[in-house]
């Protein structure tokens, strides 16, 4: 079956939802569900095996696009191995998000726009999942970037979102251009865009090749929010929460990881793994520190996403593709769950985002249960599925003690900050009387927002059960690591409990000095600012130069006119002058002839 059919229902849904504000949500949901059903049909019969998931599949479908002399571009799609994996993940998450959005989006006048943009995003993501060559991938990549930009700035009539969108798009453009440069250089060396051909072609060692791979790596960093391009992701939380759950945690941001995982054999042959490892570790550290210090209910989760992505790159840097993919799979579910949960809480608290000001759950046990399951999974406590990824990465780092220690420390802090996220608002609820404005809306928690969370909770637990059932975990995780990982996580949870929940007064208040220092985002934003200032200064200098250049040309014109004026002054209109000139002229002619 032509895999492009998968895109059809969801794109159609998106376009049709433009037609009607009122029914757009149902149309879009229907499109999304249909697409997922089509995915099942397409994948029917293909056997998926996780162990071989990372191999770049041979394209199952190709479409000639255009050709110009030696350049001939075709679009290659694949629904095998790693592509299949991402396709399934997106196929599961996408309908849930659309469903959740029905409850979340309560501004009817913006529905069409929202569902159109979200559907185009989902279609791009599906296309990305299927892409088996650089051009198809790049088309999807740009689609992701633009829809992400539009969705972050969705509430453009508010104050913050336009700025957040601007930051995101700047990073996105840098990534796009890096990616395009890399792709083009690769083509010039190998005359192919197809992943499998590239990987199987025993890539030669050339500087150009390494440059191209680095360009692609940094492009992936922009999309997957790696240092130094990670700050856009926390600002991206200005977008609607379903968008955060969908784009900025579970699917789009992992495009970079996915791509690098796919191309990892090339990086191995070019000896670029240490670069990936170093940037992964730095990012994970940055993510954790920011998550610990932030007080924004969604930004904590965003930094956690940054950390997760960093860990995935660490795994890739260690050459452990399967460990990375394990975290890749489980993170999708628990992070989507956490964001949906956060969205519900924010809705109930009149869009308040400061964890020190909001009340969580308001006695809504379903929400609480979902939050706890999500948090435990994120913290990596056995048997909630999050541990699968984290322990697997620990295992793959076991030969490198430095990295291993860092990872364990990060695991501890992860458990700590995510339970801070959970406990601080709960504590608020316990100690303060009910505010008139905030936390009153739990009674109205909509089913369409709750049910997807329940489904995801079941998946979060189910994945690990499934893994045990398949009895294949031991291949990737040693028991020691499993125990260490869980123990460290539980220790983190316990510390959080003692710091934030049990004491009468919180140990780290909203405005502690340490928190203030850390909340500066470790000066990455300041660095962005100074870079922007520098570019502006250069632009200013160029502007001055341009003005002078203009003046230079102008003074050339001016000079000509002045010359004209000077000559004109010789004219007085007297006949004497004419006669003198005549005599001069005659002498002049004589001179010409004599000389």
């Amino acid at each position, binding site marked *: 079956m032509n895999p492009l059919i998968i895109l059809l229902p969801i794109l159609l849904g998106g376009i049709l939802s433009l037609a009607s504000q009122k029914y757009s949500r149902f149309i879009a949901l229907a499109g999304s569900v249909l697409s997922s059903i089509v995915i099942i049909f397409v994948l029917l019969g293909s056997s998926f095996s996780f162990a071989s998931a990372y191999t770049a599949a041979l394209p199952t479908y190709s479409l000639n696009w255009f050709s110009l002399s030696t350049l001939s571009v075709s679009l290659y799609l694949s629904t095998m191995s790693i592509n299949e994996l991402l396709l399934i993940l997106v196929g599961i998450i996408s309908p849930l998000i659309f469903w959740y959005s029905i409850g979340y989006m309560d501004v009817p006048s913006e529905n069409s726009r929202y569902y159109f943009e979200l559907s185009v995003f989902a279609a791009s993501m599906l296309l990305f999942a299927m892409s088996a060559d650089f051009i198809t991938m790049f088309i999807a990549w740009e689609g992701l970037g633009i829809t992400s930009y539009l969705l972050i700035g969705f509430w453009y009539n508010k104050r913050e979102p336009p700025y957040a969108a601007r930051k995101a798009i700047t990073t996105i453009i840098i990534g796009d251009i890096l990616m395009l440069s890399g792709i083009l250089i690769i083509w010039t060396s190998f005359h192919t865009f197809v992943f499998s051909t590239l990987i199987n072609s025993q890539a030669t060692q050339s500087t150009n090749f390494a440059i191209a791979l680095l360009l692609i790596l940094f492009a992936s960093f922009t999309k997957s929010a790696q240092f130094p391009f990670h700050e856009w992701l926390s600002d991206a939380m200005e977008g609607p929460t379903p968008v955060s759950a969908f784009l900025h945690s579970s699917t789009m941001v992992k495009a970079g990881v996915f791509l690098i995982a796919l191309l990892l054999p090339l990086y191995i042959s070019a000896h670029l793994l240490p670069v990936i490892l170093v940037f992964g570790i730095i990012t994970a550290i940055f993510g954790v520190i920011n998550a610990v210090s932030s007080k924004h209910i969604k930004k904590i989760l965003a930094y956690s996403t940054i950390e997760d992505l960093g860990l995935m790159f660490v795994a890739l840097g260690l050459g452990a593709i399967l460990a990375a993919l394990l975290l890749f799979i489980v993170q999708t579910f628990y992070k989507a769950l956490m964001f949906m949960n956060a969205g519900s809480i924010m809705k109930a608290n009149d869009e308040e985002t400061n964890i020190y000001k909001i009340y969580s759950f308001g006695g809504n046990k379903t929400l609480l249960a979902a939050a706890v399951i999500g948090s435990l999974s994120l913290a990596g406590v056995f048997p909630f599925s999050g541990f699968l990824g984290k322990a697997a990465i620990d295992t793959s780092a076991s030969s490198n003690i430095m990295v291993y220690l860092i990872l364990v420390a990060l695991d501890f802090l992860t458990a700590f900050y995510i339970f801070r996220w959970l406990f601080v608002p709960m504590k608020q609820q316990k100690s303060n009387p009910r505010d008139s404005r905030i936390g009153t809306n739990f009674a109205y928690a909509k089913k369409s927002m709750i049910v997807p969370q329940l489904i995801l909770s079941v998946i979060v637990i189910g994945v690990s059960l499934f893994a045990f059932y398949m009895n294949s975990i031991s291949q990737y995780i040693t028991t020691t690591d499993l125990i260490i990982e869980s123990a460290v996580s539980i220790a983190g949870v316990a510390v959080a409990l003692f710091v934030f929940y049990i004491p009468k007064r919180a140990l780290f208040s909203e405005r502690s000095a340490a928190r203030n220092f850390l909340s500066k985002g470790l000066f990455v934003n300041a660095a962005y600012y100074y870079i922007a200032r520098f570019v502006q200064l250069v632009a200013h200098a160029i502007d001055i130069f341009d003005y002078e250049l203009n003046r230079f040309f102008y003074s050339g*014109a001016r000079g*000509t*006119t002045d*010359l*004209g*004026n000077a*000559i*004109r002054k*010789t*004219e007085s*209109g007297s*006949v004497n*002058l*004419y*006669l003198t*000139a*005549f005599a*001069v*002229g*005659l002498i*002049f*002619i*004589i001179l*010409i*002839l004599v000389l």
Partner: protein
Amino acid sequence: MAISAIMQMQFVYILVASLILLTVSNILSVFSRRHKIAFFGTIAFLFISLTATALLYASNASFYFFSIFHTNAFSEFFFMFFAIAIIMVETLSYKYSHELPAFSLLLSLVTFGVFLVTFAYSLIAILVGLETVALASTFMIIMNGKRFVEPAVKLFILSAISIAIFTFALALLLPYDPQLTLSLPGTSQAGSYLLGLSLILFAGALSLDAAAFPFNLWVPDVYEGSPSNVTALLASVNKKVSFIAILEVFIIIFAAYRSSFGTPLFSLVFFFLSIFTMFFGNLVALVQKNLKRLFAYSSISQAGYIFIGIAVASTAGIQASIFYIVSHMFMIIGAFAIVLWLESKSIRNIDECTGLASKNSFAAISLTILMLSMAGIPPLVGFIGKFLLFSSAVYANDAVLAFIGIINSFISIYYYAKVINQMYTRRQGKKMQMDKNIAIVVIVCLIFVIAVGIYPQILISAASSAASALGAV
């Protein structure tokens, strides 16, 4: 068309007779003071002479007559265009001249002078012709009132000097050719200082008439001072007649007078004259505020372009000059026709033209087209002329001349654009009606400028046959 020599001679008779009748009818109309008779008489007889010349031209006539004249493609070609120019000047002057009969009479004298110069086979005829044209136009200026005495006197003095020098130069030629015919002097010439002196004096005298730098200082004063219809005549007929004289004198008589490199010496003279004239005209035009002075300087610079072809001194160059002389005749008459009309609405300076486009769009558009043509913008006739001139210069290894010419036409766009800028400035004002006679002249010029610009082949071949009739170098 096989036309016998006898018939061709009859055309000559008709031509001469129409010129005489033109004068006679105008003398009569001066006495009767009837404007209409003067006007239509002049037009009619000029048309007859034009037709006769056209018939001569069509029959490829080339022979001598009355012992001091000869007719060939060159003379017929130019006389036709001069006749058209004079008709246009007469049309312009209708309503714009207080004394149309007297004006017409003087105009018929100009025509006669033009006839003498174009058909001349003797230097004496050229001398008399130039003198007639100059004197007649002096009177045309002065008859308009006291205000016009100064430019008239200036013009008179200058033409008197020019003629005196011309006569002297002519006298120096006597040893070589006692008949003073317009032909190559028979005896060996190289190194002859007498001939050289003659060349210098001729160059001086004729450059004074043709307004080459530095002999051009009188031009703006006289052009500005004269009534615009006379200015149109001065710029189109008087000046171009002196170009005819230059062509005839230098190309024919001094063709073989060469330097040790083998180039004709006169071409060296005109090489420098051309460069200086172009630069002078254009640079000074840049700072002009008065419309008439602007066109005066512009026509000086245009003279510089024409000199390129003469300096090149090849068939292609002469052909290009001839083409450009004719084209400029139409461009400048059209321009001065509009200036004449603007003056009657008391618009004299460039900044008074503001909003002309909204007051009379026809005038604005026509002036724009004429100026663009002068600046050498295709597909107008000025461009074709410049292309011919510059390519002839490059072909003769005078690429410097072409380059300077191109630089100059670039400079010229600056002051033309200044006028255009003013005209199209939006300003509400009451509409201004253009007189029919002026409109007709402008339309004729526009048709010429556009039509010949788009399809120049006919005029180019005519110019080329005129050039070869002149006896190219």
